[in-house]
């Protein structure tokens, strides 16, 4: 009897651990990363060098993604006549697929450094290139610098990642980068920038430094910390008019009402708005091409 019970217990344990370990669907090593596609309990994961980049529900490819990617929809609040958007960083294409679904007329261009990532997104994450879904294989900053296109919004979601954490590539954090970005935005242009970290906790020094750096280039910068993960989406605008939570809520309500934006959670995402700058942000350095110690997590300034 006891033997049977323990056998059953072991069987359960084996099943659980099997479910937890997930099933590797695909694995390859590109120039930049060890890329893995893993299916686990109905969710597909994309990981680079052991850190998860993208989540996607296998039942519905528009679900299961990281919550922070939803904050990118907020760019509409400042630019309701958006016709095109540039995204830096593809990964599993959560933002690209979501934007294509909700705004079918929008022209989406993506700059991705690693050609293998594009293949993986196409094969395993329902990402499809097309007339309104264009991919450039290039470094984000180099592309921006050379292009003559102007964009209504630039969405930046690129980082180096590994087992020890994720870092935004240093040349995409500097004042010079934001100046290039600003010069490629239309009059009402907006940049949405994902930083891994929190306000006041994990990597808060990086968040504060990027905030200060963006503030030195863009007239207004807004903070949207994600609720479910350690991400802060910073939004910088060319417009110098200062928005408040109330004005953003009204704008969002109108956008939903006149069906410019069909993304249903827009109002909830507006509510994450934090109207005060990161604590002690003045003490952090403006990051420049000449000085951007983002890999050392800006440790000298933690004291």
């Amino acid at each position, binding site marked *: 009897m006891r033997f049977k019970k323990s056998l059953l217990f072991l069987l359960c344990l084996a099943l659980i651990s099997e479910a937890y370990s997930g099933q590797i669907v695909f694995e390859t090593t590109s120039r930049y990363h060890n890329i893995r596609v893993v299916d686990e309990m109905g969710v597909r994961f994309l990981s680079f060098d052991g850190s998860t980049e993208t989540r996607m529900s296998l039942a519905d490819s528009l679900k299961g993604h990281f919550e922070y990617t939803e904050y990118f929809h907020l760019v509409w609040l400042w630019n309701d006549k958006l016709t095109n958007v540039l995204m830096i960083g593809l990964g599993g294409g959560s933002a690209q697929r979501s934007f294509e679904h909700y705004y079918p007329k929008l022209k989406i261009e993506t700059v991705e450094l690693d050609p293998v990532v594009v293949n993986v997104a196409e094969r395993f994450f329902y990402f499809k290139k097309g007339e309104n879904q264009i991919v450039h294989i290039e*470094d984000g900053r180099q592309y921006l610098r050379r*292009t*003559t296109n102007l964009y209504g919004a630039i969405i930046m979601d690129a980082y180096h990642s590994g087992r020890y954490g994720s870092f935004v590539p240093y*040349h995409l954090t*500097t004042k010079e980068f934001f100046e290039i970005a600003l010069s490629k935005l239309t009059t009402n242009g907006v940049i949405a920038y994902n930083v891994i970290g929190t306000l006041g906790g994990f990597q808060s020094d990086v968040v504060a430094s990027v905030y200060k750096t963006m503030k030195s280039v863009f007239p207004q910068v807004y903070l949207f910390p994600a609720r479910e993960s350690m991400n802060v989406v910073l939004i910088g605008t060319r417009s110098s008019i200062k928005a408040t939570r109330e004005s953003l809520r009204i704008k969002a309500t109108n956008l939903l009402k006149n069906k410019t934006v069909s993304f249903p959670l827009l109002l909830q995402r507006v509510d994450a708005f934090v109207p005060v700058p990161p604590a002690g942000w003045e003490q952090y350095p403006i990051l420049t091409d000449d*000085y951007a110690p983002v890999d*050392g997590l800006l440790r000298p300034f933690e004291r």
Partner: protein
Amino acid sequence: MKIYLLTGFVSFFSGFAIMVLEIIGARFLARDFGSTFYVWISQIGVVMIALGAGYYIGGWIADKIPRVSFLGVLLVIVGVITFLIPNISTPIIEYIVQRHPIDKPIPEIWQRLDPVIGSALVFLLPCLVLAMVSPFMIKILSRDIKNIGKISGFIIAGSTLGGIVGVFASGFLLIDIMRISSIFKVVGMLVVVLGLFCQLKCLKTSEK
């Protein structure tokens, strides 16, 4: 004994300067060429070319013009060039990047070779002259021909040790506490000091 100390010192800091230029140089190139894999490949490849050529040419010159003061002059020149890297390299790299027709993707071959060209134009000469230090130092010590194995081992180990310190100091410390332009300026000054050091009497008298 003193001469061992002096030649070891010069070798150590030449190795140190080469590796700081290599590591910080990769960071420096990333702003224009992107943080692509090819920037690292270029930087490592170009420094290896500089080392190979510098060892060979340095050895040849050490036999033809066995005056350490000549090496000193070359070091002062490349020290000044290194000091000026932040100022003079911008238009060079700008030209390499902007020569491609705008709005068209850069051809795959140039995505690979542009950083090689950029790295070579900026870093090849300083690293090449710094690599010439080792054979020169071996030449100075080689009066003692029966110990030539030990001597060359000592000099090569000294410059390699300097290189090791240079790599870790650059990546773990300098990049976090100094501006990139200041690092080039400090390394430039260090190389000028090495060049002046080569004019020291004790190094010269030991030449014959």
